[in-house]
């Protein structure tokens, strides 16, 4: 059989025209899913106001949110980038061990409670950010603070 090169591939479909100059530049996060999943609650803790502001803007923009809410969107991205930068400077080892654990465990948070505990301790001491789980039932230990996880591969206490 004759070898045929594919005519269509993903390369040619990307339009790389840069953003016009009148829109301020912002550096994208560039993190993959595991670090974002690991840092999500700290991002949510620090950037709650920006996130809510952006979502409200989008909601009220009447279908023009993509263009009208660029400013709010930049604030959201800068805030999240600041959280990731702080975690990287102060708690890099704990952060790395946690998101690598997530990466190896199908992003199951309940398999990585030990690494998560170390990370949240470090983040609370150094940055003052806290992981809270809204809407949990009263009078119970929140699920991320329980040493034993019923659905983990190892069902004993993880720390």
């Amino acid at each position: 059989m004759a070898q045929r090169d594919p005519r269509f591939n993903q390369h040619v479909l990307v339009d790389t025209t840069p953003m016009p100059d009148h829109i301020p530049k912002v550096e994208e996060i560039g993190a993959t899913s595991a670090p974002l999943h690991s840092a999500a609650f700290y991002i949510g803790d620090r950037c709650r106001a920006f996130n809510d502001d952006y979502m409200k803007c989008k909601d009220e923009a009447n279908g023009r949110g993509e263009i009208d809410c660029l400013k709010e969107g930049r604030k959201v991205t800068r805030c999240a980038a600041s959280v990731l930068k702080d975690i990287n400077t102060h708690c890099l080892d704990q952060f790395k061990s946690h998101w690598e654990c997530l990466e190896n465990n199908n992003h199951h948070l309940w398999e990585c409670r030990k690494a998560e505990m170390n990370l949240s301790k470090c983040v609370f001491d150094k940055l003052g950010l806290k992981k809270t789980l809204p809407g949990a039932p009263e009078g119970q230990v929140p699920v991320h603070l329980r040493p034993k996880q019923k659905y983990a591969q190892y069902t004993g206490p993880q720390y």
Partner: protein
Amino acid sequence: MPQDMPPTGGYAQVQYKRNLPARGFKPVYYMIGMHMIMAYGFYKYFHGAREQRELAREKMWSRLHITPLLQAEEDRDQVRRHFADQARANELLGSDAKVYNSDRFVRPTFAYTPASVTQ
């Protein structure tokens, strides 16, 4: 000839009852045992379901916290392509061709594919 009479002492008992030994416990104990096993199972199930619900809540909130971030990145990319499309239309047609009778932002149906490899 003398009459045919029963033997002295009467006939032997006719055995019409089955003589099977009743094995095991009374049936009610089996019933109780089954219910205890089921109660244990339901106890474990409800505790597991509660934990699963909490884990689902945790996953939902972790996604809720980063949704604006992901959305903002996607929107910026869409707006960048939108402005690029507009610039191309201006260059080719001399004016900005308005496709829809609405000022909403509409994601383009057809994507522009550069003539040469761009990445």
